């Protein structure tokens, strides 16, 4: 048959073929999309249904019960820890006046005795007595020594007097302990 007598335009056939390809592609995409979404939905539903949460809840309940049988020991342990924490705080922060007194006595030269001492709130007031002023000089030199600043933050000489009846000298210091 001669193609020239056909009423149908040759070009339309080409366009129609292209339209069919596109339609098929769109149809395929739509089907794939539907299938994927429904499959995912089913899979997720199965996974959620089969989750081990109920079994784990049972296990936890059983373990909690077993632990509750030892609640007295747990209480004792917690108490021991709490007490020992507080005890450690007390011991670390409490005053050690015996050491402070010992350190002070170590710097006293021969011939000097402690007449009186008062210690309160990290302050020490001490009265020393001696038959001579020379030991007091030694003490003052030692206080002027930089090493003592590690033990005392402030040293003030508050008095110096002579006792003519006894022939002795008294010197008083006020010391801020570190």
């Amino acid at each position, binding site marked *: 048959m001669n193609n020239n007598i056909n009423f149908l335009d040759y070009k339309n056939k080409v366009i129609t073929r292209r*339209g069919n390809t*596109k*339609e098929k592609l*769109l*149809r395929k995409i*739509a089907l794939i*999309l*539907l299938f994927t*979404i*429904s499959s*995912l*939905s089913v899979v*997720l*539903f199965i*996974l959620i249904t089969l*989750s081990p*949460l109920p079994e*784990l*809840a049972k*296990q*936890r309940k059983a*373990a*909690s019960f*077993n*632990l509750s049988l*030892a609640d007295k*020991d*747990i*209480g*004792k*342990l*917690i*108490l*021991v*820890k*709490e*007490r*020992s*924490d*507080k*005890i*450690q*705080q*007390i011991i670390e*922060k*409490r*005053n*050690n006046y*015996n050491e402070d*007194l*010992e350190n002070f*006595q170590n710097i006293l030269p021969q011939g000097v005795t*402690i*007449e*009186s*001492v*008062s*210690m*309160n*709130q990290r302050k020490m007031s001490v009265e020393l007595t001696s038959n001579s002023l020379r030991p007091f000089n030694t003490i003052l030199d030692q206080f002027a020594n930089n090493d003592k600043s590690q033990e005392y933050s402030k040293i003030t000489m508050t008095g110096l007097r002579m006792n003519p009846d006894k022939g002795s000298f008294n010197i008083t210091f006020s010391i801020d302990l570190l």
Partner: protein
Amino acid sequence: MSKKVFYGQNDLRFLYYRYKDSSYYSIFVFAITFFVCMILVLNVLLPQIKNYFSIRKEVIAQRIKIKNVRDNINFISSLQRPELNSQLQTTSKALPQYQDFVGILNAISDSALSSGVSIDDFKFTPGEMTVESPGTGSMEDKDLSFMDLAVNIDGDIENIKQFLTEINEKLPLTEVINVDSKKESTIISLRFYHKSYPKISFKEDEPMQPITPEKTALIRKLSSWQNLQLENDITSTGSASIPLFE
């Protein structure tokens, strides 16, 4: 022909037959399908995914909690009960729940005995509750209570030093607040601490920790002080031969 159509059943049928062979039909079907898929994704799939991941997270958390509870059970089972009881007894003696007057008197008399000083009299100021103001004492703790005691002792400076050392190593725990030593006598202010037992709260799924080695060493030191005190109590003779009280 009028293009205006009324959307009834026949009209839909008419539209279908008119456009079913055209490309608009495929695009329309695809658009509808895509729209339905999007609705399914937003209303069904995404919530399911969210649910799945939250369940997974919960499963992991539950497994960790169960492991912690089992570890705690094993830890408690491994504890030496006699040692734990002894530690509790020692720490309760060092920091008692209530004021331990017998312990206080024993501590003072043992310290005096060991240091060779004699005790004249003492004055209690019981019933004080902290909070301490800074500078007056060394502790700031709303639960920590104390009682101050002023003791009048006789002895030379060496004996007094020894007394201060001894009293610091006695139970219940003491803190020397004030020392006022003159030629005639010495007044020492002591502070004895006590603390009520706290409310015990325990989370079973948090891992329990053992007592640290430092704390164990501390409790051992306290126990040695306690044992020394007991030895002194046992070996000391009657008060008549020891000039503790004048």
